[in-house]
């Protein structure tokens, strides 16, 4: 199970790097989303995977009985998903506003903050 997840993470990162190398900001953003999911999976997998053993405490007991899945990475991933979602939503809105104002998403043409120097005559 872990090796399968590791493979999936690898594929996600490869795809995201490919997308992030693009000049179009929207493609970059899609790459970022994939990378964000890959990072979440890394946390999830590094907590070791246990099949079919939810971390639930049986009725009347104080602690879970037997081997159960590690609940902490899931809590961490949940936090990371929420934060990542917020940031990516902001970035998407920013990209939209930038497109509306700058009329381009090609990062080569975005030079309002750093205007290209006039070539020396």
């Amino acid at each position, binding site marked *: 199970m872990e090796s399968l997840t590791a493979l999936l993470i690898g594929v996600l990162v490869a795809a995201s790097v490919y997308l992030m190398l693009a000049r179009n900001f929207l493609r970059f953003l899609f790459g970022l989303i994939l990378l964000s999911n890959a990072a979440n999976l890394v946390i999830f997998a590094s907590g070791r995977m246990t099949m079919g053993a939810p971390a639930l405490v049986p009725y009347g007991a104080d602690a879970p009985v037997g081997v159960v899945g590690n609940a902490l990475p899931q809590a961490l991933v949940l936090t990371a998903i929420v934060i990542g979602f917020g940031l990516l939503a902001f970035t998407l809105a920013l990209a939209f506003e*930038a497109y509306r104002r*700058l009329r381009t998403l090609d990062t080569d043409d*975005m030079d309002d903050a750093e205007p290209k120097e006039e070539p020396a005559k």
Partner: protein
Amino acid sequence: MSWLLVFPIAVPFVTAVLAYLVRMSFWGRWVSLAGSVVTLIAAIALTVAVLREGVVAAQMSNWDAPFGITLVADYLGVVMVLITAITGLATAIYALGEIEVRLEKLGYHALFQTLIAGVSGAFLTGDLFNLYVWFEVMLIASFGLLVLGGSRAQLDAGLKYVALNLVSTLVFLSGIGLLYGLTGTLNMADLAGAVAEVENQGLVTVIAMMFMFGFGVKAAIFPLFFWLPASYHTPSFAVSAVFAGLLTKVGVYALMRMFTLVFVGDVGFTHEILIWVSAATMLTGVLGAAAQTDFRKILSFHIISQIGYMTLGLALYTPLALMGGVFYLVHHIIVKANLFLVSGVANKLAGHTDLNRIGGLYKSSPVLAALFIVPAFSLAGFPPLSGFWAKYLIVKAAIEIDAWFIAFIALLVGLLTIFSMTKIWGMAFWKPHPDGIDPTPDRVPTRIRLPMMIPIVGLAAMTVVIGFFPEPFVVFAEIAALQLLDPEAYVTTVLGERP
């Protein structure tokens, strides 16, 4: 549990909520200012506690470490919180003059206070995942501040800033995941022991490099700094001052924390890389500045070059070097924030920040000129200003371990810094205004000019005080460095006495 640790984070958060609620009225700015004053008081109270006890720690919700979230302040942490509060107050006063009502209605003060809360949280947390959360709080607030107002340049800069910072965050997050998988803990004090017991030390070094990359982007070290000069010259001056003062320093702080507490298994490898990275950072930053003609762009590049000195203090990894690094951090935040504030006043008086289009400031506003000289020459390392002592400590530490080449670069960069500072001096202050305008202070009404000048005077006074009476600050930095190199007190305070 010590409530003192909570206030420097909680007060700005509460202020942010209040400031947001009253953002439509003129009360917003006063709420923000009052919040900054209270934050400063809280930070001073915490500093007093740390001076008395050495290290202060508190377990949130009474979950014992390493299971709960720990807040902890040692000498380094507390001085950063204090300086954050000081910078916060200075920029809150400055904002009274600079920030327009339009930006206030968009929630400027709420975002600003959230940023301060995030920065303080990052300095105080003793939990790695919590550090990630504080980074995000800080980031999202800085995104908002950066594009607030929405000019074309800001949107362009915002995209670059957001994109590169998000990549670094994700690498940092993956590093946390892997480190947790290896050790089973996220508490930094607990990690210090757990990482040493890991069998596969090669993997630890790989994770260390992921952290170095993640924090390196935030700290703007070579070759990861490109987002900084692309964005810092676009937002309002108060915003760029607080960014310049604090944001990159959070990255440096995180590097210092992790690479003295956790990743010390292979110092010969990790810190050696950091030495050369620091040297390259110093050089590229200062050379980049030499090519610029915009007031704020020059200053932005100088942030990068100065970051190199701080990481060099960490990379040399001797008590003296770390002491210099800590001293440098404190000195730099004050000086750099101040220079950005000065550039804002210069912009108001002379009408632009492009040095080719302004001038005549010395003749019309000698006070501003004098106030520029103090931080500018402190930045370059002139005695007896604070920058001299900071550079002196670092260079001496380099010479002590026979790193002559590094010491030479550090001194050379100081010299080139003077070049940039005199360029600003010559073009903005000495030469007459190209449009024949006389940029006298009367061009700006007093109710705007006064709040903009007060923080500049205050921060310049601090620079001078540190310069003339460095003794207590150096002693403080020395204790901070010793605590970093021997984290025994830090670990036992967080985890409690172990049998």
